[in-house]
């Protein structure tokens, strides 16, 4: 409550540092990468990094709204794996009827979107109507979806029929004017997310609910409806991310999407959204996602660091990026 009231009156210098933290970290990473390897800034490498960021990025935009609304969703990685498995099974099952081609791809896309919406709705229903802690609900659904995909795949891998793979492949690998589809979709999702967060009533309501749900309720915000919608949007975006993911390797297995939820949450927090809710920054999330993928990319492009230490370096950079932006707050 106090934090919400004092934020606008905070000195400009502090606000700037807070906002600039993640951007500075990103710039430093780009400079380090370019200095270490000449191919770092090549078009191919930039395309690779941006495309592979798209899955986590699209999910993280949705996660920004959930966290801003005072919630959390641990199930997104398992959900993505389950939806990917379902999408592949449906397309394989319909293949003899419809034949390989774009109509079947649309059936797959529709499957992913419907499954994502439903999965988000289930999480939201249990959290809002049944009043169970978001952490517990999504911990539960995380286990459920992970087991379901293992069961669907019989412990092995679900593979898209070979004839279908060449039809669907362009969704990940092709694009317009040299910009691949995952990058375009990620950009569109991020821009819409930023607009909704800044301009639309829904974004302000989510922040109000996350900041103090009692006050929000007295201000005639339908708290449960807003919370529910954040989870449904996240579910839909998980569906979108899966549509980008399946064309890449045409397969899903129990190891698909492992730890995506933590990467998405880390990206959201690096970007300046408050973990306890009440304030969200979608463009910051995008920066956070890029920082995480760049660390991996740079570590792969350089020698000299033992691959055993990749996780440690990632951890240090995540904490540094957050310290950089929380600097002012720690003092007060």
């Amino acid at each position, binding site marked *: 409550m106090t934090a919400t009231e004092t934020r606008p009156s905070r000195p400009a210098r502090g606000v700037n540092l807070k906002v600039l933290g993640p951007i500075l970290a990103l710039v430093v990473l780009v400079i380090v990468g370019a200095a270490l390897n000449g191919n770092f800034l090549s078009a191919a490498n930039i395309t690779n990094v941006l495309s592979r960021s798209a899955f986590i990025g699209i999910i993280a935009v949705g996660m920004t709204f959930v966290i801003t609304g005072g919630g959390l969703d641990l199930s997104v990685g398992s959900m993505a794996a389950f939806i990917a498995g379902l999408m592949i099974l449906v397309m394989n099952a319909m293949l003899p009827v419809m034949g390989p081609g774009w109509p079947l791809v649309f059936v797959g896309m529709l499957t992913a979107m419907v499954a994502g919406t439903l999965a988000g709705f289930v999480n939201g229903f249990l959290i809002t109507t049944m009043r169970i802690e978001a952490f517990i609900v999504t911990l539960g659904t995380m286990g459920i979806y992970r087991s379901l995909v293992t069961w669907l795949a019989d412990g*092995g891998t679900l593979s898209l029929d070979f004839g279908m793979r060449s039809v669907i492949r362009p969704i990940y690998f092709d694009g317009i004017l040299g910009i691949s589809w995952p990058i375009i979709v990620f950009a569109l999702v991020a821009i819409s997310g930023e607009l909704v967060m800044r301009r639309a009533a829904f974004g302000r309501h989510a922040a109000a609910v996350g900041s103090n749900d009692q006050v929000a309720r007295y201000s005639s915000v339908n708290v449960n409806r807003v919370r529910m919608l954040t989870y449904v949007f996240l579910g839909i975006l998980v569906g979108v991310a899966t549509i980008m993911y399946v064309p890449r390797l045409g397969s899903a297995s129990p190891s698909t999407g492992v730890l995506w939820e933590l990467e998405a949450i880390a990206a959201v927090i690096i970007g300046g959204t408050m973990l306890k809710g009440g304030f969200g920054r979608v463009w910051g999330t995008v920066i956070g996602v890029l920082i995480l993928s760049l660390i991996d990319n740079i570590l792969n492009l350089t020698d000299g660091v033992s*691959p055993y230490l990749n996780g440690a370096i990632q951890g240090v950079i995540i904490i540094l990026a957050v310290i950089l932006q929380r600097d002012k707050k720690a003092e007060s």
Partner: protein
Amino acid sequence: MKFTTITAAALAATLALPALAQDTKVIGVSIPAATHGWAGGMNFHAQQAVNRLEEVYPQLDFVLATASDPAKQVNDIEDMLATRNISALVVLPFESEPLTSPVKAVADSGAWVTVVDRGLAIPGIEDLYVAGDNPGFGKVSGEYMASAMPDGGDIVVFRGIPTTIDNERVEGFQSAIEGSGINILAMEHGNWNRDDSFTVMQDFLSKYDKIDAVWASDDDMAIGVLAAIEQSGRDDIKFVLGGAGMKEMVAKVRDGDPMIPADVTYPPSMIATAIEMTAVGMTSTAPVSGTFTIGSVLITQENAADFYYEDSPF
């Protein structure tokens, strides 16, 4: 419906018990759940072996339990000992350390113990050890690489999840290619995962202008590597060597895919060998104690058909 069946079966079993009690021996099988491709194949072969042996030996009864983590596996084994009075245990330990004392308790009770693939922390507990050969897996892979690249060349190496298994394989590989003129440009962990190895290979392709071959060391990783090479459109990479014997990859070898000229086995069906040998030990006088090492075999186009299992999920 299902409940009724189970109750009926349980009732029948109870009624039948007095007559059979003297003859029936129970063999417990405890394995990790199917959380990745290889384990999925292992579960499939365990189930197949149990079904087959129950037909062959009416005097044997099998209890198959799959565990999703070491703690669950400890519980499974304790339950088998306490409630099913097992005469033998076939166990593929999730991890060596936590499983050592519960398996020792089974051995101390007088039951036969067969350990598969991963050894226990204290040697000598088990009566029979059916082991895969990890250094041998690396060695066979390295020897194939050396013979396929007589003039040497530059390769990149994909490692699995950092474990002893992975270290033994890589050491075996490195000593096999020593002096062959093959130069390892870089090694990175692909974690036996398609997505991870796809991104790592993309980055290797950005980093190096010329790569002659890839030791993916695992078939799942090889699939990710192949997708990254296809995307880059580069033709400097002559072949990719995977490992384990996934049926899609064996099919590629059989059909003469130039990028996948060979594969090296690390068969998940070794669980079937272990169950089979334990059953023989329980029902006959043939000695089966000791160590049985299942060698890694090179699959080439000539023998690929023998390693293709249509029904297996792996």
